[in-house]
């Protein structure tokens, strides 16, 4: 699980062009949107693509993202349970 969290942090940094950040800078329990990493609606859409591309997970309803993208830890947990690749 820790490996997945670390990989996921790397993938998020790359996909969202978080240029000045390293995986160590991201607290896996902190909120991704709003106060935490300060991501916005386009980032949320890009995270949906990230999950499909890297883990074969297709979100049927984009509003599911609200729950799944709470934090890196929540996202990793969802990926572990639902991944197809």
């Amino acid at each position, binding site marked *: 699980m820790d490996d997945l969290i670390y990989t996921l942090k790397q993938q998020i940094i790359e996909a969202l062009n978080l240029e000045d950040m390293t995986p160590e800078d991201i607290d896996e329990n902190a909120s991704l949107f709003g106060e935490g990493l300060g991501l*916005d*609606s*386009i980032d949320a*859409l890009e995270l*949906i*693509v990230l999950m499909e591309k890297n883990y074969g997970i297709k979100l049927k309803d984009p509003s599911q993202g609200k729950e799944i993208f709470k934090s890196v830890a929540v996202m990793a947990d969802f990926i572990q349970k639902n991944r197809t690749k």
Partner: protein
Amino acid sequence: MGDKQMIVRVSDNIISPLGMSTAENYTAVKAGHSELKRRDGLWQLPEPFTASLMDREMVNEIAAQQHIDERYTFFEKMIILSAAKALEQTHIDPASDKVLFILSTTKGNVFLLDKRETGFPSERVLLGVAARQMSEYFRNPNTPIVVSNACISGVCAQIQAMRELESGHFDYVVTVGADVQSAFIVSGFQSFKALSVDPCKPFDANRTGLNLGDAAATIIYTKKDKVTDNDWVACRGAIRNDANHISGPSRTGEGSYRALRAVLGDTNPEKLAFINTHGTATLYNDEMESFAIERAGLSNVPVNGLKGYYGHTMGAAGILETILSMQAVDDNNILATRGFETIGVTHPLVLSNENKPTDKRAFIKLLSGFGGCNVALLMAKGGVS
């Protein structure tokens, strides 16, 4: 209005899946027709989508009759045909240096970026080069101007035309708006989760997104000292930014409200037959527009939206929807908002899915788009006094 010269429509045309002339399009819309259809597997796209698309073979045949042959892309055929059909109703010599062509488009020949597309020089993907195909067809000596302001381009192009005439540089401006759909555009909107798989439902409680459509539309404008009661006058236009987000509209309708306020000026809202909205049927756009209209004090003016007939025709939308709104006022009619059933925005609007009578002679056209841009245009038959 005193001695001030006014900007007046000379002629217009719409080419869409509903017809090849303004009259055919208006008749079809008034009767509630639409060519919005579900497309499965089209252009090898993995997800289905609903769109209003031209019969490309038919366009090729009609274009060929006017010597618009295979040297031209489908997009170029559409813009040349629409301009030609608007010009043929007039005595304007398009080869005159007092005539300017303005093109409104967002993506032009973007399909040429697909590595599988061959047969056209790659420079035709440049919007200025595509526009030159049109101006050269008409032997016009002036460099055509392309307005590319996302979804608001079609109204921006008309404001541009008004300014070119007002500053005395040209006698006529041929304002052409067009976009043709492709895998590029559809997949992009799909990635934004902005498309509805079913026909769109503007302002409806159950709206789930927009549809896309092919169209080209043209309005020719000129300047007149004295207008008659039947002249359509482009009175005022304004472009304003939300300064908020590059893809999401301002929740408070900031830019749209400011544009509305600027074009309304001291015009009495009682004179407005309707406000023709952007009305894309996305959750945020329609909500935003309802707020902007309320803030501008126009909640009692009827509103409508035409995306339920054509989908979002992007660069064409502002011109196509302005033309149909002029037709509707000419016909003492407020066109129905097709797809709308139950109000689904929090700020009050006067909306209907049936045609309604009106005896008023002016309307406001609204659009909003990516980049936080918003535009409003006040059109009045006989001008506003």
